[in-house]
């Protein structure tokens, strides 16, 4: 299973990932980088959680945990109920502009289909983002300065490293 790795000690708040995502997804970005304190940006987007409350909340079968590790919304099956939006612990799902379809990061499914990595990962000037098997990601994360979080509310869908200074009590 593949997981995302966000090394936020390196993030410079340039928002290249937003512009790249927007370009790849018909003008709507599925990531929003937010300053959580004056010196720490955090990209808000789907963490592709191992435990996936969005999927469990969906009354249809519109949300799928794909074999590779990605959580995918099948928009054609979406009934606009908004339950996944409420269930997501990260606020990473939104209904589209018309309030119809739930949308979120699909790890650039269309790119991965022909062997290309997600756009945010490739475009990130500061090289904050990686994607790969959990063991490989953990091996990389262990070498990084900062505090690494392997499990959060969604368990291990995404591994995150934050600078020590931003972590209360560390």
């Amino acid at each position, binding site marked *: 299973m593949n997981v995302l790795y966000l090394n936020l000690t390196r993030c*410079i*708040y*340039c928002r290249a990932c*937003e*512009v*790249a995502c927007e370009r790849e997804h018909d003008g709507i970005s599925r990531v929003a980088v937010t300053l959580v304190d004056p010196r*720490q940006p955090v990209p808000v987007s789907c963490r592709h959680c191992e435990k996936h409350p969005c999927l469990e909340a969906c009354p249809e079968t519109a949300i799928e945990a794909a074999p590779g590790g990605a959580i995918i919304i099948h928009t054609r099956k979406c009934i606009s109920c908004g339950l996944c939006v409420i269930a997501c612990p990260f606020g990473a799902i939104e209904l589209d502009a018309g309030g119809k379809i739930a949308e979120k990061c699909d790890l650039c499914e269309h790119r991965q289909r*022909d062997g290309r990595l997600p756009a945010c990962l490739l475009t990130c000037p500061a090289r904050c983002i990686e994607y790969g098997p959990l063991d490989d990601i953990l091996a990389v994360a262990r070498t990084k300065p900062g505090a690494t979080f392997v499990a959060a509310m969604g368990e291990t869908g995404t591994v995150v490293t934050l600078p020590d200074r931003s972590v209360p009590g560390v």
Partner: protein
Amino acid sequence: MSGPMIEWVRSICPFCGVGCGFLAGVERNRLVGLEYLTDHPVCEGALCPKGNAALETVHHADRLLHPLVRKGDGFERISWDEALEGIAARLLDIQRDHGADAVGFLASAKCTNEENYLLQKWARLFGTNNIDHCARLCHASTVAGLARTLGAGAMTNPMSDVAHSDCIFVIGSNFTECHPLASRWVGDALERGAFLVVADPRVTPVVWQADLHLRHRPGSDVALLNGMMKVILQEGLHNEGFIAARTSGFDVLRQSLAAVDLAAVEEITGVPVAAIQEAARRYARAKASVIMWSMGITQHTTGVDNVISLANLALLAGHVGRPGAGLMPLRGQSNVQGACDMGALSNFLTGYVPVTDAERRARIAAQWGTPELPAAVGLTVVEMMHAAGTGALRALYVMGENPMITDPNVDHVREGLRNLDLLVVQDIFLTETAELADYVLPAALWAEKAGSYTNTERRVQWQPRLIPPPGEALPDWQIIASMGRLTGWADQFDVPSPEPVLAEINAVSPAYRGVTQERTQALGGVTWPCPEEGHPGTPILHETRFATADGLGHLEPIAYRPPAEQPDDRYPLVLTTGRTVLHYNSGSMTRRSKALLTRERSLFVEISPADAAQRGLEDGQQVRVSTRRGDADCLARVTSATAAGVVFMPFHFAGANVLTNDALDPTAKIPEYKVAACQIEGLPR
């Protein structure tokens, strides 16, 4: 990447000086997609937000499609023949009546080497050294300061080499916004345990990652650097072997530093002595230290002094000429290094041959088929605007620059441009400057013409033509060649394509001798100096000797001078200006990108919570910023990112440069964009 008709062609990003590569998708004469080029040595595929938006301007509805001539308050469409012949006739009239020095030319750091070479050649054959471009406004101080101390006014090491540094000293550079790719290599160095010192009046994203922040006052750089050097000498941290073998002038520098008083340095800079000591020790003791700088160093009336001080620091510690050790002026535009190399400067011919050097000037004159070239140093960018105001300059030919947004004291620039007998602007959009022109010529942009670009690392890369220009727009090289032929130099401007121009550059410039089209077309291009065909290029400068005549690095004592303008009762705050990550220079491209404009919509001023509270200002409120030169209305951003007493504005939107000071560095003639005394008041809601 789907679509069988799409051809993916390697391209160079048209924005900053980093020179990232990407793949442009071409289908039926349109650019339809962008893909990351992961094996590109500069960027490994990465692109900043501007790079991601690079295609948005290409097919924009605002593109200029036809030559225009002024009719009253508006423009009228005319044919190319009418435009070119009309301009040539008026230029020749002005040359006859007022002399060639009544005409000025602005080249462009957005255009190719071949185009800049042709424009400066035309200006000189026309009879004037009044040829300059925006390098005058960004790194003129670096070119002058490093030429004097190290013999070459360019970055010494490749960008990726920063990853090998043990101490990174950043002063006056917000590379996280202005050259985002630098963050990649700095990040790698920090993960290896490198120490990051940042000297900046603002808390930029570079500072977020710093181990030590020196928050010095705008314009106090020389004092700060002298303080650091004082500590290095006091504590015996200087590199005696390097100083003895590779430098001259040490005794004079040591004597001048003896007079520096660290308590006085703290007073001038606002930086505690202990922090200055820590920075000096870290920089000097590290195995390999690098200095990175940009406009925070150069855009001062002491710009050259600032750069010489940085060279002094590097030479004292012996941190130059090795992997991870060097001097890294980060250049701002895709071809600003190249435009300088080509001689689009009022004091240098191609290859940095001083216009005053009779022997070498004669050699170039012979290559250009003329007995003599003008010998007097010409007017620089800001001097041209001043001369336009007094009437000494009667005509200005502008290739792809927008001084109505980017030059200091814009109200004065407007007066000057209106006072001209002839203003010609060739550009891709009807810019704020083009709106004042007598003739507007529609130009091709990067994807619509072939040519080479030289990035901040001195790396020369070829951009192939991908699509035809829109309407009747033409590549700049073609327009300039026509102008050259029509003004009397038919034999010198018989230019069928850019390739033979690069061959001529190879012949004229020794550093470019081996920079052939074939080499520049390879992935990652070739880095000058490349003195002969087959030479591998020179990524690291000054490894065994400096580029000065005697081969030594020249230490030179520098005394602190305050900025030209000081805060007073009427204008108690210091305004400093710069870039944001989402926009680019005059904004003529990025303000036309939906992705970028929706993320950064309009002019703003950053003000500290204390200064805002004192004036009763709230975050997001409309305010008026005023200086001795004018005022500008914008939104207030109340933020601790700026220190009390200092405010910051980006210059991408109209207004900021109405405020800035056009006082110049005496040598480099660069204006002091970084220090203007100002006042801020709230506007009624």
